[in-house]
């Protein structure tokens, strides 16, 4: 008896919920069907999507990843973009994130704008260019005992459009005992004009999930997943002198920058400090040296902090900072581009500021 009653009560409750859920589903299907809408992005690309969801969701489905930290609840304000036409009025939920000037300049939060008709938007080029790539390992080079250069052929899309100095994210699959798939960021070391290929320089981190996979498991011909390009570490278009400072695999973005600048025929004065422990941590030294033939004024300074007796090292030693005065002509008119560990970045930034390089001209890409 009792159990019949329980069943009966559950049925009633389920009936009420089921009925209401059906009502909502039907209402959504009929009322929230806005048909196909066309989104015009930066006037360059047009995508046709099903209306009814937020701009953020729709763009993500088209593999355009506008940054978002809260996942579309309107609480982080990261998904700012410009909606030129067709976005409807600004919602009270968006107002706290913008100044009046930004509002009158058509700025909106992508997660709050619903796509109901054809709309026209503008997003930063860097975001617009972010894609998910399928790529194949073309070549693996051993630069040092713990640093490898890996070249990938892009399969789809075939081309990548990036600025020298930007980075991509590489996804490592599950392998061996590692039961999770992770993504890690690596700077692109190849030049932007090589648009069908990417080279990454990857140092083996002890216990690192992705770097161990790259060093011990990744084989030529294997397919991988790459997203990018990301980042705002790129050469500013000025005439100031440049000082590059890198350590370890931090050589990657600088290599890309130098190759790019060489192609563009850059005339600026440049010096490049590369810090390493011993001679066996140095790589691509001749190649970096060869840039002095491509620029009017370029010097490469490899510097060893702990040279061993067997290294027969005759070059500069110690930390990189004490050697900066050799290269600084006019500190106020010098831009610095740094890539390395957070500790090295902090120390070098401090050193440069003491020498008179303005803080806002020190750009860096720090990897943990």
């Amino acid at each position: 008896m009792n159990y019949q009653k329980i069943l009966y009560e559950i049925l009633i409750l389920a009936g009420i919920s089921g009925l209401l859920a059906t009502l909502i589903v039907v209402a959504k299907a009929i009322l929230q069907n806005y048909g196909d809408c066309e989104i015009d992005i930066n006037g360059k690309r047009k995508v046709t999507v099903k209306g009814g969801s937020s701009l953020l969701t729709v763009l993500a489905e088209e593999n355009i990843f506008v940054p978002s930290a809260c996942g579309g609840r309107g609480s982080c304000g990261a998904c700012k973009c410009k909606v030129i036409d067709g976005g409807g009025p600004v919602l009270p939920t968006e107002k706290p994130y913008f100044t009046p000037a930004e509002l009158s300049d058509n700025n909106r939060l992508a997660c709050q704008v619903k796509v109901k008709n054809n709309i026209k938007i503008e997003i930063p080029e860097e975001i617009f260019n972010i894609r998910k790539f399928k790529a194949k390992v073309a070549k693996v080079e051993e630069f040092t005992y713990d640093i490898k250069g890996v070249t990938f052929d892009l399969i789809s899309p075939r081309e990548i459009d990036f600025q020298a100095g930007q980075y991509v994210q590489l996804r490592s699959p599950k392998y061996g005992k590692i039961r999770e798939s992770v993504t890690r960021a690596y700077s692109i070391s190849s030049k932007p004009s090589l648009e069908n290929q990417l080279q990454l320089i990857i140092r083996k981190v002890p216990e690192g999930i992705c770097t161990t996979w790259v060093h011990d498991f990744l084989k030529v011909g294997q397919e991988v997943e790459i997203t990018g390009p990301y980042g705002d570490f790129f050469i500013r278009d000025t005439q100031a002198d440049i000082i590059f400072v890198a350590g370890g695999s931090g050589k990657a973005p600088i290599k890309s920058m130098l190759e790019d600048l060489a192609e563009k025929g850059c005339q600026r004065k440049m010096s490049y400090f590369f810090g390493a422990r011993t001679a066996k941590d140095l790589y691509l030294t001749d190649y970096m040296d060869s840039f002095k033939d491509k620029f009017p004024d370029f010097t490469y300074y490899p510097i060893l902090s702990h040279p061993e007796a067997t290294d027969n090292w005759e070059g500069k030693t110690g930390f990189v900072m004490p050697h900066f005065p050799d290269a600084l002509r006019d500190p106020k008119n010098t831009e610095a581009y740094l890539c390395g560990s957070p500790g090295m970045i902090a120390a070098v930034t401090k050193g440069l500021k003491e020498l008179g390089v303005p803080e806002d001209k020190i750009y860096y890409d720090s990897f943990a």
Partner: protein
Amino acid sequence: MEISPWILFWASIFTSNILLTNFLGMCSYLSVSREVESSFGLGTAVFFVTTATTAINWVVYHLIIVPADIIYLQYIIFIIVIAAFVQLTEIIVERFSPVLYYSLGIFLPLITVNCAILGISLFMIIRDYSFIQSVTFGAGSGLGWLLAIMLLAGIRTRLKEKFIPTGLQGAGMSLLITGIMALAFIGFSGIVNVQ
């Protein structure tokens, strides 16, 4: 209960204001009361939802819950009804009246889980109101909530320029103000008692 719906309506706005005497619906009250404009939008949405859901829940209670003898499930059922009603309203308003949607509709998701709305449905059952009484009680309570949040928003707007000790900034100050407002509303309570 033999109380005239008309009196009940006014009583639920002033003498037994759902927010100021029962302190129900505090979360959205505190978080949205920063600006008068959005407070008005949210308050109107609460008014609409309380009026409609008391009516629906009264029918559901007397036609389904009581005959099926599942009174102990009333909390769950009321919540489901309120949530579904809010969702449906949002969908309908968004489609047919974009203007209304932008001023009011966007607040609807915020009040799905507003305890004042569930509280009103439960009071209506506990106090054994008739259908007419329930609807006027729902409408009055909604208006009372709207009144309370508008008052707080007005005060908070003026406070923006004033010095407030660090420890009291934000919710602390709002709760103090609410307490003082509740004291002021006690002045009404001698007129009629509906508890």
